């Protein structure tokens, strides 16, 4: 029986089932974590009625969303309206297939895993935009236009940062990138200041771009609740809306996993103890959830920026700085 489970197609299939379960559980419970965090920061208890301390709230939300009819309002482009939630959910699931959770815990160990994540991550914009467009709603269309200009603007510094990382690591295999960071937290790419003194700045640029790409506050121009109702998802109800919401959290998980792998040493232990095997996976999850908590923390601490200052930040600060780091890394690698 164990032998059957290790045949390649069966193994991949089992991993995919696991990934879908992981994503769904994360989406459900990160919503609760978000609401609890928001409550904490705003000095109120947050959801606490369903179950102990609100632990059953995601189940209740899920049942409510599933029980609602998915309405397709008249005048919408019904085909695209139905296709958009599918397109928004598929890419993060695909991306998680190449993310190594531990030394051997990876569904598909691709040589070009980094490129894989970025190429499928780019479909997300298209899906949000089609959803907004198909809704035929002024709010949704404004939101779609914002999503595109925001994502195009932040894709550039993100890719420049990734090119810098590629020059440092010399490989696109995510597992290999983590293996290079073994031996304690001073070997993590975040603190490799002898390769490039700007390495922590690179991490901050990556993190800001990740926030912008996943449309999180303070860059949540796409679903600015106070001005655009719910942005691109204004016309969606029931599980159609639920899928968009799940995809947002799945994208956060993918983005934070990538930040963990590229900068924080993935499954490597920070001080060299308790490393390898399942401990590695535990370290990975600890780092991942610390980053996700930071994302939630930022959302409820900073107000939403204005749209032009959002674009100015990218074009006037992040892109020049990331170009400088790219150049500096190249020069330092050549000299040293």
């Amino acid at each position, binding site marked *: 029986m164990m032998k059957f489970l290790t*045949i*390649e*197609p*069966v193994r991949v299939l089992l991993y995919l089932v696991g990934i879908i379960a992981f994503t769904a559980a994360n989406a459900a419970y990160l919503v609760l974590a978000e609401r609890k965090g928001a409550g904490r920061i705003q000095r109120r208890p947050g959801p606490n009625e369903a179950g102990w301390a609100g632990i059953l709230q995601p189940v209740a939300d899920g049942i409510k969303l599933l029980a609602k009819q998915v309405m397709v309002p008249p005048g919408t*482009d019904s*085909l*695209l309206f139905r*296709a958009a939630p599918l397109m928004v959910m598929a890419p993060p699931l695909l991306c998680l297939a190449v993310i190594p959770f531990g030394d051997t815990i990876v569904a598909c160990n*691709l*040589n*070009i895993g980094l*490129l*894989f994540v*970025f*190429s*499928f*991550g*780019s*479909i997300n*914009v*298209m899906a949000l*935009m*089609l959803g907004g*467009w198909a809704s035929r709603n002024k709010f949704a*269309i404004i939101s*779609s*236009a914002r999503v*595109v*200009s925001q*994502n*195009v603007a932040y*894709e550039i510094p993100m890719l420049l940062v990734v090119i810098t990382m*590629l020059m440092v690591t*010399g*490989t*696109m295999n995510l597992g290999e990138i983590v293996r290079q960071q073994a031996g304690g937290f001073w070997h993590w790419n975040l603190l490799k200041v002898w390769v490039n003194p700007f390495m922590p700045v690179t991490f901050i640029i990556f993190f800001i771009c990740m926030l912008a790409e996943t449309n999180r506050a303070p860059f949540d121009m796409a679903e600015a609740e106070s001005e655009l109702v719910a942005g691109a998802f204004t016309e969606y109800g029931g599980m159609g809306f639920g899928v968009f919401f799940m995809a947002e959290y799945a994208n956060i998980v993918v983005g934070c996993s990538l930040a963990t792998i590229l900068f924080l040493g993935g499954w490597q232990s920070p001080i060299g103890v308790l490393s390898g095997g399942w401990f590695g996976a535990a370290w990975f999850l600890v780092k991942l959830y610390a980053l996700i908590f930071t994302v939630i923390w930022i959302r409820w601490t900073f107000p939403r920026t204005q749209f032009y200052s959002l674009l100015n930040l990218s074009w006037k600060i992040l892109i020049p700085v990331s170009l400088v780091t790219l150049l500096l890394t190249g020069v330092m690698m050549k000299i040293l």
Partner: protein
Amino acid sequence: MSNFPFADYITGAIFCLAVGTTLGGALIAALSTRIIRGVCGLMICCIGLAGLYWFLHSPFLALMEILIYVGAVCVTIVFGVMLSETDEPAQEKQRSFAALWGLGAVLVGLGVFFAVSRLSLGGPWKVPAAFANDGSVQAIGLALLTTYSLAFELISLVLLVAILGALVIARSGRTKE
């Protein structure tokens, strides 16, 4: 992999899926009257093409196809459509000599079809002994800067001209207020 039951059938089915996606996407792109659905067809077609590249042992090319054509080209087209189009299906305007235009289109289409078929059926196909390269960063960098450096430079020149053209158009629109 080969000891898995029906491995060949599964591979065949996935190949058919890639071909079907490519053809279906292309048909949607060509036949739909709404431009936004046409762009969606183009996107589906590109994803199918990426699958075919994957089958041809070029995962790097496949991912680049998705990153550039789906993530950049299609998004830009949709953005352009959004700023201009009212998304009403195009008015049926009877062109003079419509039949003649149609005939010309059919002739050109058939000509291209037969030329490509003749090339692909009659031409000598060299089977590469192994993979062109292992798809690693180093191999791609070396290939771009040695074997294909001329093509690489030409493409960069084309992109530069496109950027300059866009700047010129945007500038002239701004000053003529």
